């Protein structure tokens, strides 16, 4: 081998060696930095919208205002929406006989994980009173479907099988009717009805239902007219107990308009929009317009409360919640339909950790994000009311460091 070749080989070999040493040093430094960063940062679940979920509906069907979502034991996603009642004539020419598209879909829809539409049913039938305005859906531990309603005369809840066979009605429609009563100042209020938060038979425009498997009890977020949480026997529908804000006896006296600077109201505002029980048997109640979440024992003893986006007026900031899927349910995911975000809240401290989403009509954005539910893999599903009229899926992407208060639109980037 010539000296020149040997010298060249030595230089190249030394170059490789030096490069490898530099890379090893660089990697060590970066790993230390990464470990320090990860230790110092707050972690939170991260999500990305699945822009291709669900698949298009058949029969030229479209959704109306979508005001309830739940995930059953098979990880099928159930929604309820207001269909044609909330569709303008320009949205439903097929239904009107004036064009080829579209028509309101049946109010209760079941989707599989791939986004295919499975069962669909709902509407008036024999033996029960279908609500004027559907609101909230829940699938209980026996696979039965519960729905409420917040239309003018709605003061009852209904239970069906998954195939839509009627099982039970609790409360009577029209129970809150009072001739000459003025409309309240809250969203959707109509004249001719008054609250009856101490009624032991019927309700006042129910927003949401949650069935506790352990005690076989249904928690009713009651509601858009009443100001209470009501608890029923899930088989008979008989009322067992009820309470208002702070565990007080409910009082339907109208409250002054929400003022962020005023002391918190001692009664719930309308609507009482969710009542969900956690694994450690604490009941979380959404006082939507009061911008607060109140926590109770199952017996109605007040535990604590927290406020979110406290300056939010009109429709409020605490719309619906879902618990994270870890065994401890460490986080609460909270839909905020005014500020168009999903808040990620630490369940122990009730502190907001981060938020995601933004207002808009693109995937991952919201217009009136109303309801939220979670599947066994930790993926979130949201429905939008008003003109949002949409069901969206947010895929759980694991824990990640929180680098900003609002993550914005969660566009997909990783698998």
């Amino acid at each position, binding site marked *: *081998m*010539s000296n020149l070749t040997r010298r060249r*080989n030595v230089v*190249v*070999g030394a170059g*490789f060696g030096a*490069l*490898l040493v530099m*890379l*090893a040093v*660089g*990697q060590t430094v*970066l*790993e230390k*930095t*990464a470990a320090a*960063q*990860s230790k110092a940062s707050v972690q939170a679940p991260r999500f990305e919208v699945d822009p291709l979920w669900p698949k298009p509906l058949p029969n030229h069907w479209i959704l109306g205002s979508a005001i309830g979502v739940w995930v*059953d*034991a*098979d990880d099928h996603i159930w929604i309820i929406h207001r269909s044609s009642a909330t569709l303008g004539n320009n949205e439903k020419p097929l239904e009107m006989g004036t064009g080829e598209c579209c028509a309101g879909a049946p109010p209760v829809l079941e989707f*599989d994980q791939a986004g*295919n539409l*499975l069962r669909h049913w709902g509407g008036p039938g024999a033996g029960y009173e279908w609500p004027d305005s559907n609101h909230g859906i829940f699938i*209980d*531990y*026996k*696979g*039965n479907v519960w729905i409420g309603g917040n239309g003018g005369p709605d003061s009852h809840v209904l239970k069906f*099988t*998954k*195939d839509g066979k009627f*099982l039970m009605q609790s409360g009577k429609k029209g129970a809150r009717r009072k001739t000459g009563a003025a409309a309240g100042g809250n969203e959707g209020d109509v004249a001719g009805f008054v609250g009856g938060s101490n009624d032991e038979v019927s309700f006042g425009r129910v927003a949401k239902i949650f069935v506790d*498997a352990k005690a076989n009890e249904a928690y009713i977020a009651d509601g858009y007219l009443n100001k209470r949480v009501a608890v029923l026997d899930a*088989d008979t529908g008989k009322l067992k107990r009820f309470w208002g804000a702070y565990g007080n006896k409910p009082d339907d006296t109208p409250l002054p308009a929400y003022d962020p600077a005023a002391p918190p109201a001692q009664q719930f505002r309308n609507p009482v929009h969710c009542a969900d029980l956690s694994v450690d048997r604490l009941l979380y109640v959404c006082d939507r317009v009061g911008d607060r979440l109140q926590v109770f024992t199952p017996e109605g003893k007040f535990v604590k409360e927290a406020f979110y986006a406290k300056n939010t007026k009109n429709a409020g900031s605490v719309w619906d919640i879902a618990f994270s899927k870890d065994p401890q349910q460490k986080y609460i995911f909270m839909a905020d339909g005014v500020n168009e975000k999903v808040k990620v809240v630490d369940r122990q401290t009730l502190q907001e950790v981060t938020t995601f989403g933004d207002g808009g009509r693109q995937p991952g954005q919201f217009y009136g994000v109303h309801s939220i539910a979670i599947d066994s893999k930790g993926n979130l599903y949201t429905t939008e009311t008003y003109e949002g009229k949409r069901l969206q899926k947010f895929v759980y992407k694991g824990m990640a460091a929180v680098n900003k208060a609002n993550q914005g639109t969660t*566009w*997909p*980037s*990783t*698998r």
Partner: protein
Amino acid sequence: MKTSRRRGPFGSALPHALLLVALVFPAARLSAHDIPRDVTVQAFAKPEGQTLRLLMRVPLKAIMDIEFPRRERDYVDLSRVDQALRDAATVWLSNKIEIYEGDTLLENPRIVSTRMSLESDRSFGAYEDALAHVTGPTLPADTTIFWEQGLLDVLFEYPIQSDRSRFSIHAAFDRLALSVITALRFLPPGGVVRAYELPGDAGLIRLDPRWHQAAMRFVGLGFFHILDGIDHLLFLLCLVIPFRRARALIPIVTSFTVAHSITLIASAYNYAPDALWFPPLIETLIAMSIVYMALENIVAARLARRWIITFLFGLVHGFGFSFGLEHTLQFAGSHLLTSLLSFNVGVELGQLLVLALLVPALEVLFRFVVAERMGTIILSALIAHTGWHWMIDRFGVLRQFPWPTVTAAGLAGGIRWLTIIVAVAAIAWLVFVLTQRSSRPGAGETAVGAEK
């Protein structure tokens, strides 16, 4: 392996009996319902001593033509449901399963216990919980439940010779729903748990394959994978158009094989980036590799350099192979590396077959149809054209992903990969230097002579 099965008297008679019932009481209580769209069957198989326990859970909505006793409002009469559950377990589960101990088909199993469960029950998360559930208390008789919304849980027991035997299972559950997934967990002695996700009727699955059984399966998978992959085949065609002699082909094909083996094995051991943008990036790079090779053929192909380029592109193609292998590694048993290497062997056999067809075809083409240089240019131009369109289409998918945020952890991961590449390059360079030295005739003497 035996294919006949010794059925118990119950096994063969029951369907006929049910058919008779259906004919005699056509519309009485048999409730027809749609075949469900998708169903997941959960199962645990655990050999212990002289018994193999098979725990199964299936949604009752998938069970056809079995009458469940009912009480008011069509709720299931849980006090009388056991026989119906046993019938369902026999007709729809055990009659559809064949379990082999070695090559011997096991007898029909004994139904130890059945339970009807609520769909919210979560006890099938772990074997011990599922066993305690199926042998524990039944649902209270006054529970209001519809059969379509319930679950059938069963504990079967098969007599076996030894829990150390090698077991195979053939579960033909494709009739339960339009789409059926069987999530089977096999728990052989020693604490290992093997998880399988089997579609409808996945054929005979060896739960604990011998190395050569796993190897054979993966050789086949690799062989057909390369034949299915039109982009890999076009790349191969690009490689051989200018170099059709064995002496030239061997280093090129070997270099490609070694490179894709490295990244395929790295992927199987979870060293590949776990990101949505990664598959489209690899697909784009594969298309790019085809375009590059085709253009190089047109401009000027140099054998001395081609093995290096082939090596680099081989790394990319290995990731591409790994995407096809993702869902089949469950069949490797305890022979992951053997299976991966066998997959590579299969890929090589496929490549050799393609080369054996391509090389003579090219020879004929260049001898009788078109002159070699012109033929090389025309063929390569056509391939470049196809590759170019793939590249544009795939880049279109890739560019939808925003640039990932640069983090210290991400950079560290990148440097790890860079280190591997530099180390491989260093080794390749070293091999090259040593080869040059040893292949030079009288290298030592020349060096000495040069000093004179």
